[in-house]
């Protein structure tokens, strides 16, 4: 897309959303480059949303082969071996996504995420990772933060009928409307590592239990050398033991993180499609806000749980510390 003005084609196609966020934001979207790793159902939803929104390009990374589990929650993969046979998840999704908006460049990148250097990440404005170990998340986040250009970093994961989004926009300047005025604002975000290092006691008493439960599972998978989600009911005793240890270390009552929640998250190996739609939608909105610099982005964790039906934002940051 060249030139400053939106083309006639874009104006016609994007009319309804330009009425929401304005032509200026639409132009910024059309120049933005998104990288996405780990294509499960929620990420598929996010990709659909972001392609429809009209970003400049979307790069997909997921070298896994297509399985029944893959297409069961991912509408971008037709359940037809003739179509997906021999292809990776990213490749099949790429073909489907291209269809949604011919003006967006959708492509596939192969390889190991953690081995890619800063120069690679520099090509993007937004990086979204899913199904990654906690070590990988920290690593990629750091690589992004080392770049001189701001690369927005997100993680998104859904287990059972819950979902979590993490947002790191580093130092983010944006505008928001207050009555008839436009105000300029700024937010400082901690890195993923900084965020999860915040002592549990520092968080509000009513903070979402999901936050703690997911951190326990993360740690467990890391310690046992498992891939994310590679966990079963047989692991429950070990997980509960770890939970107790972590709670003690954080001077938190063990009952604060309920056993039933952990059990539920362990047993629920598959994503629940309505949750993918909800979380993928929220993530889509957040990325659009970050790119357009319009509207207050959420800081810095979002949780959704079908059980209580709430979509909650938690600010997990150390107020005294100045992030980069």
């Amino acid at each position: 897309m060249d030139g400053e003005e939106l083309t006639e084609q874009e104006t016609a196609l994007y009319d309804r959303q330009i009425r929401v966020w304005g032509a200026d934001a639409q132009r910024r979207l059309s120049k933005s480059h998104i990288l996405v790793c780990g294509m499960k159902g929620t990420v598929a939803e996010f990709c659909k949303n972001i392609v429809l929104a009209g970003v400049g390009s979307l790069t997909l990374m997921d070298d896994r082969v297509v399985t029944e589990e893959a297409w069961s929650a991912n509408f971008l993969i037709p359940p037809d071996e003739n179509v997906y046979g021999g292809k990776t998840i990213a490749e099949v999704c790429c073909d489907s996504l291209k269809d949604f908006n011919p003006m967006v460049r959708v492509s596939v990148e192969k390889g190991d995420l953690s081995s890619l250097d800063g120069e690679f990440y520099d090509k993007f404005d937004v990086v979204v990772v899913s199904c990654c170990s906690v070590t990988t998340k920290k690593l990629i986040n750091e690589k992004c933060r080392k770049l001189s250009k701001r690369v927005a970093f997100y993680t998104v994961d859904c287990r059972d009928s819950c979902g979590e989004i993490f947002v790191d926009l580093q130092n983010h300047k944006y505008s928001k409307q207050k009555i008839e005025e436009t105000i300029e604002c700024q937010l400082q975000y901690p890195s993923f590592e900084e965020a999860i290092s915040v002592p549990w006691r520092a968080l509000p008493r009513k903070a979402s239990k999901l936050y703690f439960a997911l951190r326990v599972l993360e740690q467990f998978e890391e310690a046992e050398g498992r891939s994310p989600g590679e966990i079963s009911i047989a692991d429950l005793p070990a997980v509960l033991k770890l939970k107790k240890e972590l709670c003690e270390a954080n001077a938190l009552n063990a009952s604060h993180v309920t056993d039933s929640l952990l059990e539920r998250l362990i047993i629920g190996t598959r994503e629940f499609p309505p949750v993918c739609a909800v979380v993928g939608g929220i993530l889509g909105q957040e990325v659009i806000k970050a790119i357009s610099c319009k509207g207050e982005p959420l800081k810095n964790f979002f949780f959704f749980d079908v059980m209580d039906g709430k979509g909650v934002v938690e600010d997990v940051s150390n107020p005294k510390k100045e992030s980069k």
Partner: protein
Amino acid sequence: MVSERQLEAIKGAKVLMVGAGGIGCELLKTLALSGFQDIHIIDMDTIEVSNLNRQFLFRQSHVGQSKAKVARDAVLKFRPQMSITAHHANVKDPKFNVEFFKQFNVVLNGLDNLDARRHVNRLCLAADVPLVESGTTGFLGQVTVHVKGKTECYECQPKPAPKTYPVCTITSTPSKFVHCIVWAKDLLFAKLFGDRNQENDLNVRSSDAASSSDHAEDVFVRRKDEDIDPYGRRIYDHVFGYNIEVASSNEETWKNRNRPKPIYSADVMPENLTEQNGNVAKNCVVDTSSVSAMASLGLKNPQDTWTLLESSRIFLEALKLFFAKREKEIGNLSFDKDDQLAVEFVTAAANIRAASFGISLHSLFEAKGIAGNIVHAVATTNAIIAGLIVIEAIKVLLKDTDKYRMTYCLEHITKKMLLMPVEPYEPNKSCYVCSETPLSLEINTSRSKLRDFVEKIVKAKLGINFPLIMHGSNLLYEVGDDLDEVEVANYAANLEKVLSQLPSPVTNGTMLTVEDLQQELTCNINIKHREEFDEEKEPDGMLLSGWTQAPPAKDDKQSMNDKQSIGNGGDSSNALQTEPADAVKDGEMEEISEPSGKKRKLSEGSKASILDATDGTRNHKEVEKLDDDDDDDVVMFDDLDSMTNKKKRLQ
């Protein structure tokens, strides 16, 4: 993780989706992925380009085709084993009767207008099928659950009707840009290009009524052999010059208002227009659909706000192009937001009028949104809402009554939430729809005719379009294909009688029964005779009461149900209410859109009719605002405080 119980319920469920648009596409996809096997979809619309930014099951190549059918085909591609039945039809069609609705375990709405929603609500009540309602606009969205006997029905809290403006505001005393748009669209455009025989309030009646009306008729009709340029200028001068001078001369009207300034073409465009355009590349396209005054004049960007001069040039050029390229359509045209030339003309005319009255001018993009009643929409909100709908649908299938929730998708974080679930309310015992409570109507039975009752109460307020009206066992009025000539004549005659003169006289204390056979709705109305009505507050000369309204809005703030689920096409004016100042919020913020937050002002649109003092009689006939939009739904954010203080919750 879906339990066995849930899986079974899902697999065996028969679901009806009403609407295959923004919410519909997302919903169908999520239902399919969630394991639903048997779905019927009803949608009467065809696909348009502006749908493609979010109705992702559709492609450019599908433009013009049925939404229901294309959606079905698209989903069958990734779930070929499903049974999806597509109905390209209007849900109000009699074939979708109570029997039809009874076959479903749950009905899921993805509609864009109040009328259809009320209709579906009544059919679901009659069929005793649970209904999951929803709506979105921009970043706002909501999902509500309605189960007969257990929760409120969709109409337990009356929804505001689409916004209308008093005629005098439009014809004489506009104060907002939307008034200028309505004038340009419903009066000027209609007069020039629409049905000549239609009644039109275009001219302000001067004190000398007779001569001015003669003058008016001559003015708008193009004389034989009259060149287009002088004709255009003549129209311009009449509506923006002469009419304004006449209106301006009335002292009463302008006592407390700024007088408008008359504008004459010679003052704005002194040179001959054809000379002006001589050097500009002309649009020589024969294809009528791409004829454009903007292109002709080299004004490319629809987001630019034209000056008075540019607006005037567009006005004349558009008029010229209509006559030059689309003469055959003149006399039959109605405004269509997708008709580029019509939008240009209306924008230009509205801008010139605005200039006259000291109202700020707007870009074509903005004007089109107002005139076309366009609802702004994005994919993400629809996706979120669709996910929430499926979650509720599953609860409904399992009859997990305690778990039913109304969920609000908020634009700004409130109490740390972006998605806020609330327990549904119990049915409103005074709801005339689900609780069959009688209503009361105050009316002058010696002055008001049966026709007034039918039009203003039965159809407009009660939403009963095919009524049967009885007084005891006497049929006063009905519609139907099976009536014989005598009956038809009889009913026609009844319409013209005042209530007290009907064959079965309707007077103080009479109880009328109004029924709609299709909706299986019966409504009893107690008649109370009243002599006088306040012309300003009760312009219809009738007052309907009986079901408990929501608490009246304080100042400009709207109570929850007013804002809740307006989702109704013609209501984009109300859609963008300024949020109440006292609502508890973190980081209070307006929406992202830039001052096409000018739309917010529409919501404050004056309901109070302003006296048109040039006219001896006070005429408060309301000009119906804007048409239903084909687009997606509008929803209001609610005031949290009123919500938590409100009525009993579902136990």
